[in-house]
């Protein structure tokens, strides 16, 4: 780090106050719109939107497992990306040693990636 600045937890105080402010804003708007808007509930209005057809049963049906595989793979690669950030920040100091370390780390992961490609994990099954 080039900057001589000291980083302390106090840097994060604005985030907290910002979140309170925006929370306040959203809540106020919600309350305001409750007071302003009309309230005329009819049975038809409270139905789910179904293109004019009557709704049947529960809409929360199970869905394809493919999305789940995508989500799992995302977690794995996300962690890899996060591991790369501390390396990138220290890139020039770590030099060739860090480079070799990261390349050998990525090599295993990339070989896994190649395997996934060949296996057709990213192909959408019919």
């Amino acid at each position, binding site marked *: 780090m080039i900057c001589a600045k000291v980083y302390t937890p106090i840097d994060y105080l604005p985030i907290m106050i910002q979140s309170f402010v925006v929370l306040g804003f959203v809540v106020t708007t919600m309350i305001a719109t409750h007071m302003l808007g009309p309230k005329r509930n009819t049975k038809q209005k409270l139905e789910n939107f179904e293109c004019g057809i009557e709704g049947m049963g529960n809409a929360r049906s199970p869905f394809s497992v493919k999305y789940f595989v995508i989500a799992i793979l995302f977690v794995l690669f996300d962690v890899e990306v996060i591991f790369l950030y501390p390396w990138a920040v220290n890139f020039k100091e770590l030099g060739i040693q860090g480079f070799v370390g990261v390349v050998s780390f990525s090599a*295993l992961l990339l*070989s*896994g990636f*190649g*395997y996934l490609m*060949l296996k057709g994990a990213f192909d959408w099954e019919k």
Partner: protein
Amino acid sequence: MFSIITIAITGVLLLYLGFLKNRWIYISVAITGLITALALSVFSWNSLETSFSNMLIIDNYAIAFNSVMIFATILIFLLAPHYFKGIEKNVPEIYALLMFSLAGACMVTSFDNLTMLFIGIETMSIPLYILAGSKKFSIRSNEASFKYFIFSSLATAIFLLGITLVYGMVGSFHVGDISNYFTITKEIPSILKVGIVLLVISFGFKIAAVPFHFWAPDVYEGSPTLITAFMATVVKIAGFAAFYKLLSTCFILVPDSWHHLILGLSVLSLIIGNLAAIKQKDVKRMLAYSSISHTGFMLFAILSFNSFSASSLLYYSFAYALSTIAAFGVLMVVKNHMSADGSVQAFEGLAKKNPILAIVMTISMLSMAGIPITAGFFAKYYIFVSAIQGGWLWIVIIGILAALVGVAYYLKLIIAMFAKTSETEKIVTSPLYITSLLVATVLILIAGVLPNLIISLI
């Protein structure tokens, strides 16, 4: 170090070779890789490797256990082609995952830093969660996978909490620093003791010691038998090696924090493991409980730290691994044959159907029971000697009683095999399969006759 890398790279190689769809290619590559790893491991004997910024220490202790585990894996891999006959799906993946799990197991035995121990345990366990559920359409297999995952991750959480408390007091993950802390500090804070207790508990889960054993029978029964063989041997040995090393290097100076706990685990495992095993109808379940009772015996080594206990633990692991693999190997054939269930009745008349298998099973059962001229006898003998040297005579008496109870259910199986039956259809196996089983059997006998070969190693 190189052997771990070899194992991991062989795993990656297997993944890609799987696309060739030729099972002989990938089995031969797997075996070649494992033999190379074993050779690399054996050749680094007596050359202490520590230069990994204090993360790994590959001393003779680690090399000995690694070699046993790699050897056990080779035997399991020799059984694999016959086991997976007819099932072509995901076989290379299963091989690769076994490799990765083995790599993790090798890290576990040679840790020098608690972070490395943690990563090793996870690398060892995560492939196993998947492997336990690798029979995708079997409900029992799914149940096994899920149970193993839940209990194992609970154990990991406990383990992490233990590490945290230790780190919080000691200020280091390094094994040397931790043992230094205990030599310097006279008054050990109670929270550190809680941390040690938590570590012991989590290892109790991993090695399936009573009362943390309840996952083991279901998982062993539900998983594919080949995976069960791997779990019962490699994973258990790795767990014991790490457990022994952790307590002997880090916490040897604070025995009062964990001694009673180990004592309780050991006695309970002996009693409950053996009594429950007698009642089992299913052979796989019986072997699961017998493995719990073996945990009780192996804990003797940890109970009595002395110059002899490490080598007695090694010998016991070796004997136990060989007999377990032989037993599971025979069980696999019997179970697959005519889609018989794994009950004791299925073994009736095995001596007629396939005499080699019957002999292999008999010797392995005798070894597990601890009958002389098999390795199992000296395994129990050395572990008892080690316990007596440590001053635990009354525990040894319980152990001997438990071993006598054990003989009952092992004999039940042997008697069933030599019983007469009307059904006399031959059971055929592949030559590779028989080779693996015979190697295990012969080694059981050799180790039983010449115990000094192994006991004098470390």
